[in-house]
């Protein structure tokens, strides 16, 4: 009995001890909305040849352009590690950097390069802390904090001309790892570029470029206007309207080959093509009977089906991601507004009520929002409307923005804007957090569309 009571007493003491150090419960529910600070250390090049593009710079600007990250200025870096063993984690922690990208480029000869890069979690490696890396909690479970800081480590071999593409690929990998969502840096954009010649005559080009605006090439050049480019769902073709021969015609061009086919050339308007999600149909705008109406055309059979009727102008159709409905712009209510048609029963509902002008609407990839051109107080801005709540959020504020098109991950919107009287490409995140301009090209940029 004596021993028993002593044991109990010791037990009691132990219990009392642990209760004195009981864990404190805290609940974190709110954080801040800001870009994640990261650093991309310029990749060290080794060997006789030098690449013609700065791949680490491509990665850095891609990530910067996404709006999710704040890139640490390379000029301010006092350390430029290119491999894990050279990384002084305390230095980067001191800079409040969350994640670090390092890498090197090895010239293999013959214009071939071997690129290695690593994405590191600056806070995962606690070796430099001079502390025990494994700490026991009250339960005696060893919680190891010395976890491998390497989030991604990859090696690629490519020719010089593939470096830009590789840079976008690496940016996609990093973006996916850090945000959990698909990157869009390897996607393409298409737009119409208008150049004025010295004799003031215009030259129109249908241009395809990387999502960052670089690597442009024209797939069609015409002295007559080109309008309304639209990517096929597989990204291999672009449908557009061309006024060659001074008549509106609807064409589909294959991006890789430049080959094209005529789709419609009816008298009057042949415009605003939009692909169905399965790529089998186009919704287009025709004015065969003097009324501007929305029609679908089966691309295999050429069969037409008129969707809207009446005296109003119905234009700019876009399919919903599930292909079950279309939205379009119509003046049937007096001012241009967005309407939605259920394709199964042809029922039409007005969906925009804010502002006296809403046009150029398209769905976000999740089908939950539409982005559109919204006019309020005479200013045209890009806006996003939640279809459930009806809440409209204006994303840009320049007052003369046009032609919004959303990225395939739904994060960014590209649009035509103006800078000092010139048409340029603008980017805005769908949450409105980030806004930036793509590098200007010679000429006026119109109607950008983000490819899949």
């Amino acid at each position, binding site marked *: 009995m004596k021993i028993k009571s002593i044991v109990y007493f010791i037990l009691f003491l132990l219990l009392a001890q642990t209760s004195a150090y009981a*864990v404190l419960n*805290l609940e*974190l529910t709110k954080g801040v909305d800001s870009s994640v600070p990261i650093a991309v250390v310029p990749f060290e090049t080794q060997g006789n040849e030098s690449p013609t593009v700065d791949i680490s710079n491509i990665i850095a600007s891609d990530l910067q352009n996404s709006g999710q990250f704040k890139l640490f200025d390379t000029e301010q870096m006092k350390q430029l590690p290119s491999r894990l063993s050279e990384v002084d984690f305390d230095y980067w922690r001191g800079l409040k950097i969350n994640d670090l990208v390092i890498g090197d480029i090895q010239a293999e000869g013959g214009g071939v390069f071997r690129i290695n890069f690593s994405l590191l979690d600056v806070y995962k490696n606690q070796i430099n802390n001079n502390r025990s890396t494994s700490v026991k909690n009250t339960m005696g479970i060893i919680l190891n904090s010395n976890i491998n800081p390497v989030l991604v480590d990859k090696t690629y071999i490519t020719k010089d001309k593939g470096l830009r593409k590789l840079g976008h690929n690496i940016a996609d990998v990093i973006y996916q790892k850090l945000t959990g969502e698909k990157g869009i840096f390897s996607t393409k954009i298409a737009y119409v570029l208008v150049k004025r010649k010295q004799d003031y005559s215009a030259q129109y080009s249908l241009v395809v470029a990387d999502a960052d605006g670089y690597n442009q090439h024209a797939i069609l050049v015409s002295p007559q206007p080109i309008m309304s480019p639209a990517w096929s769902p597989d990204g291999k073709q672009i449908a557009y309207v061309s006024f060659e021969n001074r008549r509106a015609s609807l064409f589909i061009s294959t991006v890789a080959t430049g080959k094209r086919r005529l789709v419609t050339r009816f008298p009057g308007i042949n415009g605003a093509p939009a692909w169905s999600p399965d790529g089998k149909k186009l919704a287009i705008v025709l004015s065969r009977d003097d009324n501007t109406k929305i029609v679908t055309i089966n691309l295999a059979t050429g069969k037409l089906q008129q969707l809207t009727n009446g005296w109003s102008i119905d234009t700019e159709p876009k399919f919903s991601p599930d292909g079950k409905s279309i939205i379009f712009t119509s003046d049937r209510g007096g001012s241009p507004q967005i309407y939605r048609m259920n394709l199964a029963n042809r029922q039409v509902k007005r969906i925009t009520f804010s502002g006296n002008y809403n046009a150029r609407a398209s769905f976000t990839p999740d089908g939950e929002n539409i982005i559109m051109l919204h006019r309020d107080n005479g200013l045209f801005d890009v806006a996003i409307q939640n279809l459930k709540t009806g809440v409209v959020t204006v994303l840009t504020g320049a007052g003369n923005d046009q032609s919004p098109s959303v990225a395939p991950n739904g994060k960014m919107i590209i649009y035509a804007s103006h800078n000092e009287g010139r048409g340029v490409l603008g980017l805005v995140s769908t949450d409105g957090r980030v806004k930036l301009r793509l590098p200007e090209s010679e000429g006026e940029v119109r109607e950008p569309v983000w490819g899949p």
Partner: protein
Amino acid sequence: MKNDKKFYKISIIFASVLYVAFLFLFVIGLKFKSVPRVRVANNSMKIVQAVTVDQNKVQAEIKKIRAEHKAKRNAEIARQNRLQKLAKQARRKRRQEQKRLASLKRQQKKLEQQRKIKRLAAAKKLKQIQKQQHFAQQRLADLQKQRQQITINKKNQVAKAAAEKRLQGLRDQIAAEQKQIAAVHTRQIQGEVEKYKALILNAIGQRWIMPAKFNKKLSAQLLIKLAPGGTVLNVAVLKSSGDAVLDRSVITAVWKSSPLPTPVSAEVFNQFRELHLTVRPEGLLG
């Protein structure tokens, strides 16, 4: 044993009867011898007196005496015959007695045998009964043992319960005392604790860059170990939210918040050595 006793009794009775019979014969014998001796003495005295008597008278006397002798002899013979007859009778009686005894003995033997059989049967039965009794006793013993065990167990349980109750009472008492002591501190400390909890949450929240898209239903649990002064010693994931990006965003925020604001008082700080941080993303800091 009882039979033996009976046997002795019978023997004694038989011996006594024999003894009485002999004694009787002996007494009769004595009478037969003593009587003539007395008579002879009387006769000689008479003879002395008769000397003076005439021949005739003597003749007559002789005749008389002869007749008396004859009569006496006849009487003696008759008595002898009677005695013989008696003896014969006695012998017959004895033989009869012996026969009776023998038959008695036989009967007794028979009885004895019957008794023996009975006894054996009884013994057998007894043995059986004893056996049964033994079994019964054993069972009883077992039952008793069981009952004893049960009572012992019960007793033990009761004792145990009592001990536990006592112990619990002791514990309660100590807990109550501690509570009382704590209550005094708590009022001062609790305010301090709450204040630093808020400060810590704010410090981490300010550095927590929420992922652009997160599921509001998700939650994660982190264990944060702090050194005096608020330096973060370790951040461990106790329960992942399932979203690696969300988990990492908070872990990084905790590390970046080091040193966290913690109470200066060692006593209050002790409560901050280990923090359970539950993460439930709701929205942005206002």
